[in-house]
């Protein structure tokens, strides 16, 4: 990157390091931190959406919907989340291809599962074989985001379901007394009030979500773990201008520090948000704030 990097063999010390850390590969490594942030930015709202629908359906009076909602909430507590990650990535992919197969090739007469193969017609393949590389990468990332949203949506549904039950019952009864329908009570009374009760659980979930981002690696995305592994490995002088020994330990130390800083910053901001939301609330936190100012 710098002009003095033209001949790496002559460099030493800090100048060598400055050149080493700005190679094209390292730039891709730094970009992959953006991938992690992008994943968080997309997953957090969509998981909240999944969670909201999960919690709402668990409250439903129609029992198949309520069972579906409750089952969705319960299943992730009993099974490791990583198993879901590995499962959904293949299952979603096959599910999409199967649906397209049904639509696009109605006169296909062979079975889809032949021995150890999953075969759909060529038109149903996702993404199509002749598309550009970036389409494949975007599709992989989309599958990963969907998987994260489903799994963390279940956690969020658990939190929101609890928060909905924490809203004082008298509030809902009052709404009924005023002649509101169930739908109106839900949207105008329950939903605006539940957030204060949900925030501790949701901020906890945000922390868990941050710590789950390295699992992107298992979903086949070229994320920070992938780059740390490949850049840190022993670099042979025959293949690179910057030979070095096995530095994977130091790369992962850097990732460790990155995550520690990230969680620390999140903690500080969530604490401030909580302070703001408890202002004027009829909770012990709100009382403490009133006493402090008085």
């Amino acid at each position, binding site marked *: 990157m710098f002009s003095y990097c033209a001949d790496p063999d002559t460099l030493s010390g800090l100048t060598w390091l400055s050149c080493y850390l700005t190679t094209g590969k390292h730039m891709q490594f730094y970009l992959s931190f953006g991938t992690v942030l992008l994943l968080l930015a997309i997953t957090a709202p969509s998981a909240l959406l999944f969670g909201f629908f999960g919690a709402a359906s668990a409250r439903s009076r129609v029992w198949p919907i309520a069972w579906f909602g409750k089952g969705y909430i319960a*299943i992730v*507590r*009993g*099974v*490791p*989340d*990583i*198993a879901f990650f*590995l*499962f959904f990535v*293949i*299952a979603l992919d*096959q599910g999409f291809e199967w649906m397209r197969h049904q639509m696009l090739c109605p006169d296909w007469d062979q079975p889809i*599962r032949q021995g*150890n*193969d*999953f075969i759909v017609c060529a038109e149903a393949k996702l993404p199509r074989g002749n598309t550009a590389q970036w389409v494949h990468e975007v599709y992989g990332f989309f599958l990963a985001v969907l998987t994260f949203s489903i799994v963390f949506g279940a956690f969020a549904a658990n939190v929101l379901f609890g928060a909905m039950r924490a809203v004082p019952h008298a509030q809902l009864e009052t709404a009924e007394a005023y002649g509101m329908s169930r739908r109106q009570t839900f949207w105008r009374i329950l939903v605006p009030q539940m957030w204060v009760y949900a925030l501790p659980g949701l901020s906890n979930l945000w922390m868990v979500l*941050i*710590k*789950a*981002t*390295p*699992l992107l*690696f*298992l979903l086949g995305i070229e994320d920070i*773990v992938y780059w*740390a*592994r490949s850049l*840190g490995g022993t670099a042979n002088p025959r293949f690179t201008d910057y030979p070095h020994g*096995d530095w*994977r*330990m130091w790369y*992962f*130390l850097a*990732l*460790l520090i990155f*995550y*520690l800083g990230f*969680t*620390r910053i999140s903690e500080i901001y969530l604490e401030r948000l909580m302070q703001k939301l408890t202002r004027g609330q009829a909770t012990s936190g709100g009382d403490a704030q009133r006493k402090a100012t008085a």
Partner: protein
Amino acid sequence: MSCWQTVQDYGLRSLGIGERLLPREDFTLCEQVTLIGSGLLWNIYFGALALLAGFFLATALAVGKGARNRVIRKSASWFIFVFRGSPLFIQFFFAYFAFLQLKSVSPVFDPFTSAWLGALIVLFFNTAAYSGEIFYGALRAIPRGDIEAADAYGFAGWPRFRRIVWPTMLRLAWPAYTNEAIFLFHATTLVFFSGFPAWQQRGDALYYANYFADKTFNPFVPYPILAGYFILLTLGIIALFGLINRRLNRHLPAAARRGLKLRINIIR
């Protein structure tokens, strides 16, 4: 080949006992159930040992975080922050590569690079940090009256901690600690996906489930089997911790009747 024959061949495959070659084609349901169940032994090994050892370190960390001595307090807080603030997945990677470096320094570190010891140490520290934070919260939530009563009876120092503070702390922390135990067992599935090699394909339950899903390209059989095993394991943990919970609460009036039932269970 009958199913019983499969169980004999692969039941302890994850420990290296029985048939050496994994099945390669025409996977039967029996083979999948047997091998994934065999891998579950590793999850139980990691979870149980880490939990048991972590319990004692967690108590020390909780007391340390509440200590008056600044050095002890700061070091305990930092330990907890480092292990709670970073992903376990990255901790596994870091520890594995750190042990690899140490191995080249001295052969003493040879066993640390294999999963049975290296991953166990990481899980031990990790669960100690999480439970330490839970115990610390419980320590601060002990009713003041309990401590005052202990003082009035002339308890001080170690006997006061051993007989009053510690049991009350455990009682208050137990529901959260049960949750931590469940998630620790779930976390053990990460071990063989994070650098630690599965030597001679001796892996845990998820390792075998992933093996079958890769070979058959059909995730709808092995992963539900794995889920079934883990739901059973979770129910087992809840039952065991529920027993301990009843024992911890046995002096409380509301739980007195349940305490009677519990004693029968313990004798059995």
